């Protein structure tokens, strides 16, 4: 089938070529070339994605089949890409935001040596390659390839500054935690193969295949897939790697741990929405997990003192909202929030990077303050992002978050209240961060004060672009109550996300009331934050504050419950069972033989008399046996 979309293999291929060139040539290529190649290939992919988007908008969706990856017996897994509405949206997000971050990195990382600069861009391109594989895959196996691949890139990039032991440990932790989630994902895959002998999306979601699944099958598969998503998208219980992942360079945090990789779980659920909608149990689990994560992470973010850690927990919390949306059946709302979150969270991270750059590497907000005058562009864009994430109209965050809150209200007022609480906390801690960092008096050293300067344009232009997107990005999803037919996103995704059309039982007046309520309360929270933090002085935390600052001691709990017992068990096996047990048996057998032979040797006394005695005895015995015992 000669569809023009068959050339979509170019979209992931370009970053892969960038990876190869920058990776192999990092010792010889000058930094400018590396930066141009690294960003250029992403730009190329972006332009292709735009073209793909318009193709899809015009109705041309396609599955491009390239070759058979695995073909055994009746199981065939093709290496194929699926281009439809959902994947085209994600393509735009990944390549678009990715390009901006690549450009930003050329300036942020320019202190690195040539070789390491090349290595950085190679890894970044590799990441984009895998992420594109993930969203373009036409079956679960190709998606899984991208899934693990982004985990790998994340590992490589978190541990980028590999001289530091704790960074390396954080990287390993991220990889292993992701792997645990992947374990569940794989089992779900095998389950699917066991039942219907195929993994391609078009076949799995067809009515014929669905009929072959029993109710337990669907619940099991979706739950297992979701556990995989908790690993990748940092939900309870597999979220503790994300804050530690802040050890990597800030653009990495922006791209991977805010805008793209962590949204892989959301993408997967959105892609599998047909299966999820069939299982009440899973949906409940998903919703509750998302809700709990959203609130838990928000509480932790209230007390963090590292600018990146606040943003990290904020990401976990926002992901919780997206997961909540999925669990409520509001798939489009979740995807919408992915998009707007990509804009303002990437902006926040890049802005944080700009702040860190200005502060000469310091990340602790207790030493900042009053920066608004010195780094104006950063401050303004950061402020825009904070308003967006708080959810104040008409910024993008308002529309997406409101869609989620509306879905929550439809399901149950309790969920709505808790989600609203989380939203208030979000506004509160974000503006706490803004005020502590940018307002009040400068709390750092004199030397740092002199060093403060605005970042170069390669860094500020992406900030400005993302800020514009954070403002206008919400207008593709205007709810119907405000403007009829304004929810262009939902309409666009209709072919892929079928069950979105739950009739809005909510009256227009209620909807307006909810919107107004949330906006008003959020503004109150911002005012409260202004009041508390505009002249910030650091105070030692006590009681609940201390618990929050220590992240509810979750990491310590994991260590005590899982990691240390495993280590002790491994030690036990190594020292006791291996040495004394099994090897003891083997060596013992050898020693037994030696002992036995020593005893036997004593027969050889050298005395002729005893030899003759033995001979006679043996003859007598043989005689007896031969004549009397054998019939």
């Amino acid at each position, binding site marked *: 089938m000669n569809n023009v979309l068959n050339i979509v293999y170019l979209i992931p291929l370009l970053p892969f070529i960038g990876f190869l060139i920058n990776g192999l040539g990092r010792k010889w290529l000058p930094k400018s070339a590396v930066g141009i190649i690294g960003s250029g290939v992403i730009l190329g992919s972006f332009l292709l994605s735009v073209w793909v988007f318009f193709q899809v908008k015009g109705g041309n969706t396609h599955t491009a089949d390239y070759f058979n990856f695995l073909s055994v017996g009746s199981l065939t897994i093709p290496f194929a890409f699926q281009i439809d509405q959902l994947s085209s949206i994600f393509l735009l997000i990944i390549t678009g935001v990715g390009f901006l971050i690549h450009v930003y990195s050329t300036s942020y990382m320019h202190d690195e040596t040539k070789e390491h600069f090349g290595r950085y861009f190679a890894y970044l391109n590799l990441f984009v390659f895998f992420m594109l594989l993930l969203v373009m895959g036409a079956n679960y196996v190709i998606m899984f390839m991208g899934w693990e691949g982004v985990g790998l890139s994340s590992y490589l990039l978190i541990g980028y500054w590999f001289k530091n032991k704790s960074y390396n440990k954080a990287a390993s932790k991220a990889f292993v935690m992701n792997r645990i989630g992947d374990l569940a994902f794989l089992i779900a895959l095998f389950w699917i193969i066991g039942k219907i002998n195929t993994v391609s999306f078009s076949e799995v979601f067809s009515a014929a295949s669905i009929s072959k699944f029993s109710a337990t099958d669907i619940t099991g598969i979706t739950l297992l897939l979701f556990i995989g998503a908790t690993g990748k998208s940092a939900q309870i219980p597999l979220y503790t790697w994300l804050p530690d992942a802040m050890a990597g360079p800030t653009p990495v945090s922006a791209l991977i741990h805010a805008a793209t990789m962590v949204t892989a779980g959301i993408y997967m659920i959105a892609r599998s929405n047909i299966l999820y909608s069939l299982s009440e149990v899973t949906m409940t689990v998903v919703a509750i997990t998302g809700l709990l994560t959203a609130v838990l992470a928000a509480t932790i973010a209230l007390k963090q003192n590292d600018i990146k850690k606040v943003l990290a927990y904020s990401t976990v919390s926002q992901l919780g909202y997206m997961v909540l949306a999925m669990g409520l059946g509001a798939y489009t709302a979740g995807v919408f929030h992915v998009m707007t979150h990509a804009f303002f969270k990437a902006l926040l991270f890049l802005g944080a990077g700009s702040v860190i750059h200005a502060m000469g590497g310091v990340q602790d907000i207790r030493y900042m303050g009053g920066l608004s005058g010195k780094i104006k562009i950063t401050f303004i864009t950061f402020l825009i992002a904070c308003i967006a994430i708080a959810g104040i109209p008409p910024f993008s965050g308002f529309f997406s978050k409101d869609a989620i809150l509306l879905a929550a209200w439809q399901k149950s007022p309790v969920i709505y209240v808790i989600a609203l609480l989380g939203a208030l906390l979000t506004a509160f801690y974000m503006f706490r961060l803004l005020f502590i960092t940018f307002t009040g008096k400068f709390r750092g050293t004199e030397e740092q004060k002199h060093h403060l300067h605005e970042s170069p344009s390669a860094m500020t232009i992406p900030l400005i672009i993302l800020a514009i997107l954070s403002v206008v990005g919400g207008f593709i999803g205007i709810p119907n109550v405000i403007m009829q037919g304004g929810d262009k996103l939902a309409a666009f995704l209709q072919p892929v996300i079928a069950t979105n059309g739950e009739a809005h039982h909510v009256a227009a007046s209620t909807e307006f009331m909810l919107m107004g309520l949330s906006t008003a309360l959020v503004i109150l929270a911002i005012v409260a934050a202004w009041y508390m933090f505009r002249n910030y002085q650091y105070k030692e935390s006590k009681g609940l504050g201390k618990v929050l600052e220590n992240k509810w001691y979750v990491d310590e709990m994991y260590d005590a419950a899982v990691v240390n017992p495993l280590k002790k068990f491994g030690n036990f096996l190594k020292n006791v069972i291996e040495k004394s047990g099994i090897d003891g048996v083997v060596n013992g057998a050898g020693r037994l033989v030696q002992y036995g032979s020593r005893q036997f040797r004593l027969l050889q006394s*050298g*005395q*002729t*008399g005893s030899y003759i005695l033995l001979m*006679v005895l043996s003859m007598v015995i043989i005689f007896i046996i031969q004549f009397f015992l054998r019939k």
Partner: protein
Amino acid sequence: MPINYYIFLSVALFCIGIVGVLTRRNAIIVFMCIELMLNAVNLLLVAFSKMHHMKALAADVASTAGTDGQLFVFFIMVVAAAEVSVGLAIIVMMYRNIHSVDINFLNRLKH
């Protein structure tokens, strides 16, 4: 004479021979006992040979049954002679070295 008498005598001689081999310390006495055992066997062979011959003669006058026993006696005697000559030679060599024929001194086989 009934064959039983020959058997009893032969067995008695054989047992005396064995006991002698096992318990006596003088090498020459051990040799004599070995000879005793061999002769006990000879006796038995001759006795049975005669018995079979007698039985065969009763049936058929010119048969030669039972001669193999007596032939075998010759073999045993030859073997005994050879063994005694070699053994006595060894005892003489032993006596020349350690001036004794006590077999308990023969424990060098261990090394």
